[in-house]
């Protein structure tokens, strides 16, 4: 008997993906753990546009007039602040989550572009220190591989309080990625499903954080900039507390931020998007008269030079990219398609970093797969991507008449949706209305 399609009505409450997830949960009795980042539709920088120059504003001449992109981070207390040529940094991703080739490729590209890379849960590898001129050392709750010698040879220290993909949660790395080398660096048995702590073991709350920051400064003789990374939840409170605790730089990670392995429910249902988070953080800094004195790096869903330009226009000093960097290295590229199929996915849909069997060799510890990403080739792709983003950023800044990308401002933009206008605090296009602030 044939089915009459006119009589098929999918439930809005129980669409096919919800049914499938309930079936999976009933079969397995465990939450779904996966990589990548949120897949749901969220308000993003795409909902903002630049106004560009007109009769009331002069643009800069694209080929003749300079549009500077340099940025200095850590000017508050550190005796050796970080000077970057571009305001696009590489976010913290662990060796373990990523293979050594991917880490090396990111380091080489960042060095060539005059920007920084960041270690991750699990400590610093020789390869990444060697390949990265400017390396930020993450100080995480797990303290896996935490070594004072590495602290001293880092260029900045990032205390991770939370991350956008899982604010309030700790790291995870499933057994297939806990190889002998990874296990050795983390002092763990080989092959276990590793769950990192979500709270720091030796401090709780902002008053303790003040003392912890002082300890790190004392150990490194007050040389290194100290960043505090927070997942975007309540930046209006977290930013002032981090400033009070003595941070030089705040890293704010929106809910679009990626992860190597986390519960799907966490990725999709915790945290706020970067769009409102940036505004809240900038307002908090301005209220303290600390905007530009404590620098703000934002991350979570930055994919293009346009995203960078919009983040800077909203008041950020720099951005950080994670998932986009992996995509530049080859993540979800339509190559080795049979291996995507073996994971039960397709290029374009893959979020299987947690399996350790990355078809393109980015998030794997398996030598045969890792060989698919040659560090030189990865570095070239990454460098090309960073160059493209920077050119896009400069294109938009010049069009707004700015000789430095940090001169972009909220007044250069309007919003295409009421939601984006409210979240970003810029007027809805064609009006001077910012929801929540009056106007018509």
């Amino acid at each position, binding site marked *: 008997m044939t089915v009459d399609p006119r009589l098929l009505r999918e439930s809005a409450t129980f669409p096919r993906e919800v049914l499938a997830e309930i079936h999976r949960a009933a079969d*397995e*009795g*465990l939450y779904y*753990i996966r990589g990548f980042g949120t897949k749901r539709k969220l308000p993003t920088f795409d909902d903002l546009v630049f106004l560009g120059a007109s009769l009331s504003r002069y643009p800069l001449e694209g080929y003749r007039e300079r549009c500077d992109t340099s940025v200095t981070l850590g000017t508050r207390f550190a005796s050796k602040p970080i000077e970057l040529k571009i305001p696009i940094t590489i976010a913290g991703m662990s060796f373990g989550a990523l293979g050594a080739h991917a880490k090396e490729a990111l380091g080489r590209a960042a060095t060539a572009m005059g920007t920084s890379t960041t270690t991750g849960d699990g400590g610093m590898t020789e390869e990444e220190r060697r390949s990265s001129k400017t390396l930020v050392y993450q100080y995480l709750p*797990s*303290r896996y591989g*935490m*070594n*004072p*010698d590495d*602290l*001293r040879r880092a260029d900045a220290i990032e205390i991770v309080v939370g991350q956008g993909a899982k604010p309030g949660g700790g790291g995870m790395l*499933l*057994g297939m990625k806990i190889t002998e080398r990874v296990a050795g660096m*983390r*002092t*763990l*048995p080989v092959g*276990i*499903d590793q*769950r990192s*702590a979500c709270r720091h*073991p*030796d*401090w709780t709350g902002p008053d*303790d954080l003040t*003392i*912890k920051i*002082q*300890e790190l400064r*004392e*150990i*490194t*003789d*007050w040389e290194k900039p100290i960043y505090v990374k927070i997942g975007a939840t309540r930046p209006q409170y977290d930013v002032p507390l981090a400033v009070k605790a003595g941070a030089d730089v705040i890293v704010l990670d929106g809910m679009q931020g990626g992860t190597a392995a986390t519960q799907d429910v966490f990725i999709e249902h915790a945290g706020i998007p970067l769009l409102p988070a940036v505004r809240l953080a900038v307002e908090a800094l301005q209220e303290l008269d600390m905007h530009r004195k404590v620098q703000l790096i934002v991350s979570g869903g930055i994919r293009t030079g346009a995203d960078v330009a919009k983040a800077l226009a909203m008041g950020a000093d720099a951005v950080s990219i994670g998932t986009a960097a992996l995509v530049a290295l080859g993540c979800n590229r339509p190559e080795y398609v049979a291996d995507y199929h073996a994971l039960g996915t397709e290029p374009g849909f893959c979020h299987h970093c947690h399996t350790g069997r990355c078809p393109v060799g980015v998030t794997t510890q398996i030598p045969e797969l890792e060989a698919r990403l040659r560090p030189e080739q990865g570095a070239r792709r990454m460098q090309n991507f960073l160059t493209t983003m920077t050119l896009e950023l400069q294109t938009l800044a010049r069009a707004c008449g700015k000789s430095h990308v940090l001169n972009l401002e909220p007044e250069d933009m309007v919003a295409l949706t009421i939601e984006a206008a409210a979240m970003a605090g810029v007027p809805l296009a064609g009006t001077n209305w910012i929801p929540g602030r009056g106007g018509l």
Partner: protein
Amino acid sequence: MITVDLAAAPLRDLNRRLHSLPANTNERAWRITNPKGAHNIAVGLTQGIEVTIDGHVGYYCAGMNQRAHVTVNGECGWGIAENMMSGVVRVKGNASQAAGATGHGGLLVIEGDAGARCGISMKGIDIVVGGSVGHMSAFMAQAGHLVVSGDAGPALGDSIYEAVLYVQGRVASLGADCIEKEMTGAHQAALARLLEQAEITADATRFRRYGSARKLYHFHTDHADAY
């Protein structure tokens, strides 16, 4: 012996001076007076020097220590010898929370009691406590030894990995995945060596050993109620 009076000299200058010592320094014995509970005293030391602190110290004293021998003639705040890599840190009095947290190596001796979370997330350090330890001690402890001559508070060794715990007194309760294990002659000998190194007088045969049941090493739905 070089004496630094913290009532007169800024802490930052002291730490900087200690950091700048070369490996072959002649300035091997230091005495610090008037610590008055200051935080971050003698942190990040790298040379095999002797540092004696006369008085009470605040948070993170001797944090991330490498090679140095640090003695506190007093009580100490949170995180004494946190993330220690090597060397010896001795507290003559009591220690507050998170003593020896995440330590990778070396020996931490607390002659008095230690507060909650002693040895949290320890990664190879040996900790010997003359008195008792508070709740959640050795939480997520990965490697190394925690020796408790007195009692242990609730949830000892919760989510423990491969660290080895020896307790002489009463254990209020064990945390998730922590179990009592057989105390063999080899364990007693190893414990006796640790007690001797720590200069803590106790009979190794009277201790019980605790460690990981290794049931939570892999995520499984049947373990959901363990957390």
